[in-house]
């Protein structure tokens, strides 16, 4: 899952981060999970290569 990949890159992220500064989203359209919002104050959005 996308969440697991992001946590592997940034283990310091908290549960609260994922419903405040970060939004993972799935539109139930068969395209899977994606990062809809990344507004973490200190950690940059993971690259597509890091998430592959």
């Amino acid at each position, binding site marked *: *899952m996308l*969440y*697991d990949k992001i946590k592997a890159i940034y283990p310091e992220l908290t*549960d609260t981060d994922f*419903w405040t500064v970060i*939004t*993972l989203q*799935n*539109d*139930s359209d068969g395209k899977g999970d994606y990062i809809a919002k990344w507004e973490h104050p200190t950690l940059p959005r993971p690259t597509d290569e890091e998430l592959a």
Partner: protein
Amino acid sequence: MAISKIVQDSINGGVAGSGPAFSAFNSLTTSLPNATFTKIPFNTEVFDTNNNFASGTFTPTVAGYYQLNSGLGLGTYIASATIFSIYKNGTEFYRGIVQPNTAVSVSSVISALAYANGTDTFEIYAFQNSGTTQTTSASSTGAWFNGSLVRAA
């Protein structure tokens, strides 16, 4: 001049008239990946007066103010927060957070009044961060989404 029928377009602002109204429910469970806002499909329509609801998305074609309501739950108890949100045009618009403190299945209702310009879309998304994938409830009484025009633009 006799008036045989008044259509929505001929009604001045402030009158709802026979605006769009819909009601749908989820007859199948929806899988919620951990920490991911997931769209709920609400695959079964009860009614859809203006054919403005499809695939879990309400796109009212009459501009105005809409009352939107949704009830949703998880099939089990989780100790972490659960969020049910109304999305407008693909972005979270209103949020309802459920933080259970007893070991019962999580469920809640979210309700909001929102303006629609005639092309805006409205959907319901759910979020949980239990650490594993959860599934939503699936029934006409436990997983539903409805809305109607309450005031024309």
